[in-house]
């Protein structure tokens, strides 16, 4: 039933939402409109009863795995528990129903929250300037690169190369490209870290930014970080930190302290904002002091004012764009709803607690690694930060079970799959990130399932998943003959 599309449930004349009479005169309201503006009919949307709509979307929801229902060890995505108090509080009218063009004078609670969040982000990063505007991690990358570009322009430099690691997220080179840079790739060495020789070879007077992920996508903290720091800055370039893996180092190590000049956070990963099926997220960025003036506007500021009673208190305001600001990268303030959840989360943990988040995330990943390595290769050693990358290449050789097969089969055991085939530097990569919000029992059950799969027949695994409503969709066909929207069938009943 739930596999039916909305459009197939539609029946002319059904209706859910209605308004009453407007209560104002309606004659002539439309007469002012020139005919060329008006459509004769409204768009051909489906027609449904309210009960249809509810059952349809409730039904569809049950076809998803999610953190609320399943262990979701998707590497690089930090699928941690999304606290329900965040949802409740962020839905308060004083947060959810605020219009983005309201005046700061009547938004002092909200702006205080956003100001404090800027401060917290700065403290955690070890950097100085914060913009909460970017709408996603990749958007933060782009914004930071536009900031870097503005900086170099301001000092009369025409540096136009961005270096990215071969193990980096694909967004790194794509963002660099969008910001008008050219990109070069720096290799990883056998340890899975940045190859310092290759970095040295590619750093030159045209290098604007070196984009680094640390811990990197193998879950390794790059132990040569201080050397890289020196090399890049000696070359006159900036270091950008891809903050996707911040869940590993909260309170343990600060990007600003190990050399990053710019970075973004993924609050939907690190700070428990829900992922929402692929969005919304947010991508706030932090930059070193000398880059602050290039940040997009507005930023929340505060100043002391005197109250009517003669006491002083903080007044929170929005900064005007400076002449150096890159302007803005999205409309309105930013993804406030996502940021509010990050704020609530950080208030829940405090400084001591937030370090323990990373400690437990690291512990869980290392525990999983210690168990998994008995039956799957883990090419880059026995220790990791918050995630690790195993390889199914031996399994593939021995039993023709690929990383994809493994991923599909684990679904049958009631777990979401790890990330597979990323990072590109590991053959048949299986990237596992357990997060700190899973129990040892769950981790043990996951290991047990993985182990059992490695012991299963190839046939069983190749045809997996067996327990899901669908199995192994035809991706190639989908791309070759794209069907990107529903169309009214020629005859009423020829839909499957």
């Amino acid at each position: 039933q739930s596999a039916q599309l909305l459009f197939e449930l539609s029946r002319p004349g059904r209706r859910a939402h209605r308004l009453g009479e407007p209560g104002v005169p309606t004659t002539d309201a439309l007469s002012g409109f020139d005919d060329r503006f008006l459509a004769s009919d409204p768009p051909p949307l489906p027609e449904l009863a309210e009960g249809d709509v509810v059952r349809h979307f409730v039904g569809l929801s049950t076809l998803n795995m999610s953190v609320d229902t399943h262990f979701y060890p998707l590497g690089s995505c930090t699928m941690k528990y999304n606290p329900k108090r965040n949802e409740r509080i962020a839905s308060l009218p004083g947060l959810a129903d605020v219009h983005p063009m309201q005046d700061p004078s009547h938004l002092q609670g909200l702006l205080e929250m956003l100001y404090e969040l800027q401060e917290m982000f700065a403290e955690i990063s070890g950097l100085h300037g914060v913009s909460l505007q970017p709408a996603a991690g990749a958007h933060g990358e782009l914004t930071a690169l536009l900031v870097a570009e503005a900086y170099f322009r301001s000092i009369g430099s025409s540096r136009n190369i961005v270096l990215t690691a071969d193990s980096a997220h694909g967004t790194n080179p794509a963002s660099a490209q969008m910001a008008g840079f050219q990109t070069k790739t720096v290799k990883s060495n056998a340890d899975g870290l940045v190859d310092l020789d290759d970095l040295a070879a590619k750093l030159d007077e045209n290098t604007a930014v070196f984009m680094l992920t640390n811990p990197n996508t193998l879950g390794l903290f790059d132990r040569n970080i201080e050397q890289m720091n020196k090399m890049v800055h000696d070359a006159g370039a900036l270091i950008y930190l891809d903050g996707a893996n911040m869940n590993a180092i909260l309170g343990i190590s600060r990007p600003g302290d190990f050399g990053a000049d710019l970075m973004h956070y993924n609050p939907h990963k690190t700070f428990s904002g829900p992922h929402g099926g692929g969005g919304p997220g947010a991508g706030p960025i932090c930059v070193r002091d000398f880059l602050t003036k290039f940040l997009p506007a507005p930023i929340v500021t505060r100043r002391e004012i005197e109250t009517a009673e003669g006491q002083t208190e903080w007044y929170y305001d929005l900064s005007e764009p400076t002449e150096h600001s890159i302007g803005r990268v999205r409309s309105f303030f930013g993804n406030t709803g996502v940021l509010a959840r990050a704020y609530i989360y950080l208030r829940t943990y405090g400084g001591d607690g937030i370090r323990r988040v990373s400690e437990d995330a690291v512990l869980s990943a290392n525990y999983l690694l210690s168990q998994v390595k008995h039956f799957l290769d883990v090419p880059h050693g026995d220790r990791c930060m918050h995630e690790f990358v195993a390889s199914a290449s031996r399994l593939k050789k021995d039993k023709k079970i690929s990383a994809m097969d493994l991923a599909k089969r684990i679904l049958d055991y009631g777990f979401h799959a790890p990330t597979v085939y990323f990072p590109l530097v590991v053959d048949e990569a299986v990237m596992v990130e357990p997060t700190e919000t899973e129990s040892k029992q769950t981790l043990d059950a996951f290991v047990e399932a993985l182990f059992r799969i490695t012991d299963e027949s190839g046939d069983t695994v190749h045809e997996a998943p067996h327990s899901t409503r669908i199995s192994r969709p035809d991706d190639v066909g989908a791309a070759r003959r794209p069907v990107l929207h529903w169309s009214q069938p020629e005859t009423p009943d020829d839909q499957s």
Partner: protein
Amino acid sequence: MSYLFHTDDDRREMLAAIGASSIDEIINDQVPQSVQLQRQLELPPAIHEMELTAELTRLADRNANANSHVCFLGGGAYDHFIPAVVDEIASRGEYYTSYTPYQAEVSQGNLQVMFEYETLITQLTGLGVSNASLYDGGSAATEAVLMALATQRGRNKVITSDVVHPQYREILAAYLRNIDAEIVVVAADENGCSAGIIDAIDDQTACVLVQHPNFIGGLEDVAAIAAAAKAAGALTIESFDPVSLGRLRRPGDMGVDIAVAEGQGLGNPLAYGGPYLGIMACREDLVRRLPGRIAGQTTDRRGKRCWVLTLQTREQHIRREKATSNICSNQTLLALRATVHLSLLGPEGLRETSDHCIAKTEYAKQVIVATERFEIVGEGPSLKEFVVRDRNGDVAELLEYARNHALLAGIDLGPMVGLQCEGTLTGLPDRYRDCFLVAVTEKRTRAEIDQWAEILCHAPQTAAC
């Protein structure tokens, strides 16, 4: 602590299995001591749920909002009614705690919603293809321009007008600064109509970006602009308002090539500007240049109809620096809300919503003009937004007075006049310096509109009302 699972016993057992004596030992193995933070982060102290809820409730109560105040603010974000069903569906953990559907077998819910969303957007716009959403209406407009520039190689001119949303033009300027492209901002006429765009189109024009209804609520002759652009080999991008389409013609029906919109008004809360929903649809033949996720239909190994993310060769995780865009997410949860919202509305509900906006806006114009203190700036009908000039007072003071009377009466346009970004005009023309922008949605009642006029009329002024 808060959401942590491990007990001290768990930690001991796990460390033993790892063969480490402590978590610090693992960290020290990975992170050079020299870059370890040697102190605790200075964050506010941890606070538990009960106190946190009380504190944040107090904080929230300090913000005026569309619940505590009657809201006449628009400018790209609107106080439209959100049916309870939308919240009920979107608050299901299976939706909001899931991620991008990398594993199609356990993501058919999200994938089908994306496919349904895309279909609804094609129905709404009359265009052949939609992506699964972008960040917001503003960045979507710029993504459309980038798409047009990529399609129209050799042309580098982007023509827009000074009544397109100022923030959208700021974004455009920021994104294009380091790219070989020129932004031409055409002045609209005194009624806020950008017909002058037509004359500015030339053979270097990659695209035209027009907003309809535009930022100040004016209607544009999109069909004429699109025809002129097409004749010159340029693409037309329309930034539209989805709620307007209950009455206004669809972008695709007017010859638009790429349509973008802010989808907040389709079931998404105001939330001080985000997260919002960037809608983008285009002609079918442009699909391989379309940024963002796309869900498509296919069959599984047993022949069952199903949905997957498709055309991923456009995307960054495969193409890296050659991708059409760096975007690797979409606003699934907001797209879900829009999908549920449109399902509830249907064609008649959308039309009714448009009609309520139109009738109430017309009424608001009449009552505000009747006060004699105020005048409407620009002629012509309005969908839900119009500009008002106060003959007798300072706009900022007027609106402050209204706020203190539980009224969000309008947006002060003064600060937006004449803004520049990197030499490009991003602000509004001078005629709006002493004006404010008013939006009237279907939620406003006659009594609220009357009260709005009444309060504005009684605000302190320099001459009698």
